C-alpha cells in the first residue's frame, strides 16, 4: 500500500501500461516536456521517449483519427484531450469511426484506443474547462466509458482500459486530481473489473448512486444523513457504459429509494437512464420515484456562480427529504 493522489495514480498506471506493452503509446497536446497541463504524464517522456509519449499538433480530430490508424496497425494509443469542452472537434472521429469500426468490419478489426478526458467543474476555471459531456458518448454503442473516483481505482482502471480490446473513454474528475488515497499497486482487489459498480457504504433507507467527482459528495451527504438518523447506501458507479444495473438493482431492492447524482445536466443525462432502468427492474421495491440530482439545463455557468450549479451535500439531502416524504 502506498498513498498518492489520483493524478499520480494515473501517472503510475500509465507508466505500468507503457512498460507492460511495447506497442502502447501516449498521444496528446503538451503531454511531453510539460507533462500535461495537469502533470498527469509528468516524467514519462524522459522514461519512454518521444515515440511513446507523443506531443501532437493541436488538433483533437487529428489525435483521435491518427490513434485509430495506429490501432489498426496493432498499437494501443492512449489519447489525452486537454479539457472536456475541447473534445468536440474530435467527436466525429470518436462517434462515427472509433465506436463503429469493430462492428463495420464484422468483427475483423479492433481499435483498442483509450481517450482520457479531464472533466467536470469546481476548479474555478473559464468557459469550456468544466463540462461533463459523458452522456453524449454513452449514447453511442461501441464505446466504453469509465470514471474513477479514488487513487486506487485510477491506478488500475487506466491499465484495464489499455488492456481492453474495445475503445474506452476515461473521464477523469479533474477537481479530484489532488485527492489522496491508498493504492495497492500489487493487486486490484475488488477493482479488478472496471465495469462493475462498488458499494462504498451500506445503508437501509435509500441508495445514492454517484460517479467520478460526486462520489466524495455522496459519501459526505450519507454521513450527514446518518447524523440525522438516516441510513444511506452509497454506490460508486465507476462505469458509465456499460452501467452495472445489477448492483444498483440489488441495492434498491434493499433500500426502496434511489437518488442519482451527477454534475452533468439532469435532462437527457445518465441519471435518467438509471431512473428508467430501475423503474423497470425494481418497480415494486420502490417506495418513491427515483430522484435525480444534477446540473441545470444551461451551458456550464461562469466560475463565480458554479457553486450554485454544482450538486452538493445539501442538494442531495434535499432529494433525500423528498424521497423519504412518500
Amino acid at each position: 500500500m502506498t498513498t498518492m493522489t489520483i493524478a499520480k495514480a494515473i501517472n503510475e498506471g500509465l507508466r505500468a501500461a507503457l512498460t507492460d506493452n511495447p506497442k502502447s503509446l501516449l498521444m496528446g497536446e503538451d503531454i511531453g516536456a510539460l507533462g500535461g497541463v495537469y502533470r498527469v504524464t509528468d516524467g514519462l517522456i524522459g522514461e519512454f521517449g518521444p515515440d511513446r509519449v507523443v506531443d501532437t499538433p493541436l488538433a483533437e480530430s487529428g489525435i483521435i483519427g491518427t490513434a485509430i490508424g495506429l490501432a489498426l496497425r496493432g498499437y494501443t494509443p492512449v489519447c489525452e484531450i486537454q479539457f472536456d469542452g475541447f473534445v468536440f472537434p474530435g467527436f466525429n472521429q470518436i462517434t462515427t469511426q472509433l465506436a463503429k469500426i469493430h462492428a463495420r468490419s464484422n468483427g475483423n478489426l479492433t481499435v483498442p484506443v483509450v481517450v482520457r478526458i479531464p472533466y467536470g467543474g469546481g476548479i474555478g476555471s473559464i468557459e469550456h474547462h468544466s463540462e461533463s459531456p459523458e452522456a453524449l458518448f454513452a449514447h453511442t454503442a461501441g464505446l466504453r466509458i469509465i470514471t474513477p473516483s479514488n487513487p486506487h481505482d485510477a491506478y488500475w482502471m487506466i491499465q484495464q482500459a489499455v488492456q481492453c480490446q474495445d475503445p474506452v473513454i476515461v473521464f477523469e474528475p479533474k477537481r479530484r486530481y489532488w485527492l489522496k488515497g491508498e493504492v495497492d499497486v500489487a493487486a486490484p482487489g475488488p477493482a479488478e473489473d472496471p465495469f462493475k459498480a462498488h458499494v462504498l457504504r451500506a445503508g437501509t433507507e435509500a441508495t445514492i448512486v454517484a460517479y467520478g467527482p460526486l462520489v466524495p459528495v455522496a459519501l459526505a451527504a450519507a454521513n450527514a444523513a446518518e447524523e440525522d438518523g438516516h441510513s444511506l447506501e452509497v454506490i460508486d458507479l465507476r462505469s458509465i457504459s456499460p452501467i452495472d444495473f445489477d448492483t444498483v438493482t440489488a441495492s434498491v431492492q434493499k433500500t426502496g429509494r434511489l437518488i442519482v447524482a451527477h454534475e452533468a445536466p439532469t435532462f437527457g443525462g445518465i441519471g435518467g437512464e438509471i431512473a428508467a432502468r430501475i423503474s423497470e427492474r425494481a418497480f415494486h421495491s420502490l417506495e418513491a420515484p427515483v430522484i435525480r440530482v444534477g446540473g441545470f439545463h444551461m451551458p456550464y455557468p461562469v466560475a463565480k456562480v458554479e457553486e450554485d450549479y454544482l450538486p452538493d451535500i445539501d442538494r442531495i439531502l434535499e432529494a433525500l427529504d423528498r424521497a423519504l416524504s412518500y
Partner: protein
Amino acid sequence: MGTHLPSTEFDGTAVDDQREADAEAVMGEPPAQMVQLLGPDGKLGFDPVFTDYASKLTPEVLRGLYADMAAIRRFDVEATALQRQGELALWVPLTGQEAAQIGSGRASQPQDYIFPTYREHGVALTRNVDLAELLRQFRGVSNGGWNPKDTNFHLYTLVLAAQTLHAVGYAMGIQRDQKLAASGAAGSGASAAGPDAAVIAYFGDGASSEGDVHESMVFASSYNAPVVFFCQNNHWAISVPTAVQTRVPLSNRAKGYGFPGIRVDGNDVIAVHAVTEWALEHARQGKGPVLIEAFTYRVGAHTTADDPTKYREAAEEEAWRAKDPLARLEKYLRSEGMADEAFFAKVKADGDELAAYIRRTTHDLETPDIRTAFANTYAEAHPLVAEELAWFEEYSAGFAGEEPAEEPARQAVSAQASPKAGH
C-alpha cells in the same frame, strides 16, 4: 441548369484566366504543372522525371492496365443496372476515373495499406478484393463486406475525409514497426510486418474541404509519415463544383504543409502509375508524404440518387468523354502493335463474364442474422448487449411456428432506403 464550366479546367477551352491569375498571385508562383504522358490522342509524351517510370511498363503490364480499366467499367455498368433493378440500395459510379484508380492501385505493392473513400472500386480490383463482396455494403447486408487484413484494402468510409487521419496514423505505426524491428524488440512482431511499407489515403475534391484533410496533412508532415495522399479531383462534390472547394489547384496545397504536391492527368493511366510509384518510393524511403492530385472527371452521376443534368452542362461531360482513359490507351496499344483485335475481344468477353458473375452472386449475398450485430458491437463481452440479445431471443421465440410476415414490395423498400448517401 448550371451555367459555368469548371474553373480549374486545364486544356484551355474552359480555363478561367482570372482565377488562374488569382492563384498565381496567392501562391507567388504559377499553378502546378500537370504531368501527362499519354495524351487523348494516344501518343506518348516525355517527362523528365516520370518517363523513366513509364518506360519500365512492359507491353504485358500495359495490356493489364487496359484490361483492369475495362473490367471495372463493365462492373460499374452492371452495378448501376443492379441498382436500377432494385438489387442494390444505392450505387456510386466511377466511370471516368478508371485510370486514376487502376494506375494508382497497380503502382502499390502488397505490403502497402490502402484507405479508400467509397468510390474506389477500381483500386479494390487491383487489391484483389472480390468485387461481389464490395456490393455487400450497397445491397445493405453489411457495412463492410471484406476483411481488410486479407488484402490491405480498408473498409469504405462514408464520413468524408475521416480515413485520411486513419491513414496517417497507420503510417505512423509503420514507422514504429521499423524502429521496433531495428531494435529487435522481442515479441513486437514488427519484423514480420515488413518495414518497407507505405500507405495511400484516397479522397476527393469535395473532401479536401474537410478539416480532417488539413489535420491529416499536418500530422503527416510533422512526423514525416510514409503516406501518399491521393486526391481524385473529379470536379464535382455532388452538385458543387471544385471552384467552391478551392481557389488554387489542390496539388499546390502540399507546399503549405512542406511536402511535394503533384498534379497528374487522372485520365492518363501511365502517368498516374508513374507518379504514384514515385510517391510510394519517396514515402517508403523515409522522405515523407506526397500529395497527388489526379485531375479527372466523374462522367456519370455522383450516386444513383443524383441527377447531374440539374447542375452541369452536357457539353462539359462530352468534353471529358473525349479524354476517355480507356480510349487513349487503346489507341496507344494498337498504334504500337502491343495489342490486337483478339486482345480487345478477350477483354470484352472477360468483362461480360465478370458482369455475369456479379449479377449471379449479388442475388446470393447472404443477409446476416441481426445476432451478428449483437456479437460485433463490442470486441469483449458487454452486459447491456447480452441483456438486449436475451430479450430479443425471448421475444423472437414467441413467434415460433407462425408464418413470417409478408415482405413489403421491394420497390417500396428500395425507394425509402435510397436517400442521398453521405455527401
